[in-house]
């Protein structure tokens, strides 16, 4: 069983939902990322999602765009991100790590070379924002060979027949984007989200996690009542940026991120039992 499958099975046992923080690798500094990952796990993260910086992050709102720009200014490449995963794995063999990014850096490295490197450092999955099921065949062969999960997005605009086309190719979990828009935008319509999550669940047995628009303990708890997991991105990235601007060191920045995550964890767990 893959680390991601084990993770969801264990959560199921304890009646909890997955909390999945997203940070951009190398933002605000290269030295910050691995300590932040460990602190996030200590604060209740179940899976870590690392953003791979890209020069043209088309699906991101302003907060995460700036994070990509900072990381690139710190010379963070896909190879750097993979070495961060290796460093994290030295101390943590249990927590799944997922990379979220854009197709071109992976294509430039080469799908086969990427899959080998990812397997070697202990990466668990890849989510390529701009690689829909129609284009994914060549990449999927390599990911499967290396035992990596391929995470796909489902959007509010995805028609029902397309959900099946996506879930046929997906593994690990399905990531439902709860909003039409870029990362960091707007407010959630929980009824609409619940309906769509239901539609996805009716079509596949994979866990369904929800991302976009989740920024605090309340929204995390609300989503945790209807989905198998919750992704938080922009809110965390923003807190870390502010901490860096205040001149905090890696510990301080990690602490700021961990505080929000602990809050969300508490909100979600209380929501499950209460």
């Amino acid at each position, binding site marked *: 069983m893959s680390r991601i499958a084990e993770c969801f099975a264990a959560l199921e046992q304890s009646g909890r939902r997955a909390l999945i923080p997203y940070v951009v690798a190398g933002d605000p500094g290269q030295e910050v990322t691995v300590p932040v990952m460990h602190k996030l796990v200590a604060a209740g993260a179940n899976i870590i999602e690392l953003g791979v910086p*890209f*020069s*043209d*992050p*088309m*699906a*991101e*709102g*302003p907060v995460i*765009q700036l994070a990509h*720009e900072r990381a*690139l200014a710190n010379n963070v*490449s*896909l*190879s750097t991100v993979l070495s961060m995963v290796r460093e994290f794995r030295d101390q943590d063999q249990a927590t799944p790590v997922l990379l979220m990014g*854009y*197709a*071109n*850096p*992976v*294509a*430039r*490295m080469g799908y086969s070379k990427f899959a080998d490197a990812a397997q070697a450092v202990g990466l668990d999955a890849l989510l390529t*924002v*701009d*690689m*829909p099921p*129609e*284009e994914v065949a060549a990449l999927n062969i390599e990911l499967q060979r290396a035992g990596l999960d391929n995470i*796909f*997005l*489902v*959007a*509010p*605009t*995805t*028609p029902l027949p*397309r959900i099946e086309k*996506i879930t046929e190719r997906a593994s690990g979990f399905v990531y439902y*984007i709860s909003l*039409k*828009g*870029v990362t960091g*935008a707007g407010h959630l319509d929980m009824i609409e989200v619940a309906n769509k999550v239901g539609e996805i669940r009716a079509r596949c047995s994979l866990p369904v996690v929800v991302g976009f628009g989740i920024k605090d303990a309340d929204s995390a708890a609300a989503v945790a009542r209807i989905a198998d997991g919750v992704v938080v991105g922009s809110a965390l990235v923003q807190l870390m940026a502010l901490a860096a601007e205040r001149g905090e060191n890696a510990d301080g920045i990690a602490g700021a991120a961990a505080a929000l995550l602990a809050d969300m964890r508490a909100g979600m767990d209380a929501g499950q039992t209460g």
Partner: protein
Amino acid sequence: MAEISRELLAGVPDQNGHFGEYGGRYVSETLMSALDDLDRLYTRLSADPEFQRELDADLANYVGRPSPLYEATRWAEQFGGARIFLKREDLNHTGAHKVNNTVGQALLARHMGKTRIIAETGAGQHGVASATVAARLGMECQVYMGEEDVRRQALNVYRMKLLGAEVIPVTSGSRTLKDAMNEAMRDWVTNVDDTYYIIGTVAGPHPYPKLVRDFQSVIGREARQQCLEITGKLPAALVACVGGGSNAIGLFYPFLTDDRVAMYGVEAAGLGLDTGEHAAPLSAGRPGILHGNRTYLMQDENGQILHTHSVSAGLDYPGVGPEHAWLKDIGRVNYVTADDREALDAFVQLNRREGIMPALESSHALAYAARLAPTLGSDDVVIVNLSGRGDKDIHIVAEINGIEF
């Protein structure tokens, strides 16, 4: 020279938008359904004679087509060799070839019941052409333009505002055309229900490269017929500048199965290919994935998209339409370059010798034609796509010459 059969050409792009190994649809899932809708609608309308009549009427009565094919005798005589004809897209309404496409896509937007138009623009010509059709249809229009281009193309910015459009300066990334396209995509993801995105070039996710090509192909269809009427034969060569590549594909496409017609797509060499300060992905880049399609890109060894440079804002783009990538690989079109200086020289020369002010984009094509003509015979005909007029560039040329207004 590579030959293309009609059968091969008819199969390109395939139903998923692939031109050989290029093109496709690399976008976020949120947009996939909108692209499917657009593809279905376009497939239906492009086979509908009523739609074609509507389009032809707009091209004739609003755009002012056909555009002339003009022999630039006095300009050409200084080079010797071939006769050079200019396809006068600069005489179109709004002053460039861009309007051929926006008129067509505006009809699609209306058929889809959309109420709002967005567009990206570099030099501002596509923004102006989009604002123009939006004004005509009474639709709201917002144009994304890199902050750097807003500065370089102040005249077109004001023109768009006069047309009732809102110009949104883009401050992310390199603040040029590629970043404007990112921002337009972000807008579209957010407002996909009521918004139509008019992409201005033959790049982007399927079906855009195909439908923009089809709308721009009127250039080559006219030029082919005009050339036969005027000279009694087909041209020996076609020359067009290539940024995203819409004016070039528009000229080339109807000639692709004419095996003896050589084609030259001219990329911007900027300060020189060896300086890295250029915008020539076909000449100096390698294949990758950006803005919804797989194509040649200017990128570093980590797959990050590189900053580009050209004196011409409309060529200042790190990618190129996927059909050009395919035509390069199969060897049907030759992709060459002209640098800033050559383009500026051609700009001045065409003014002085023909009384025609070309856009700096089109000046790259002129610069290459000046090199090509002497290598051909005096019976040979070269057609250069004069894709736009140069009024918008006057202040850039003046600035380079140290003149302040």
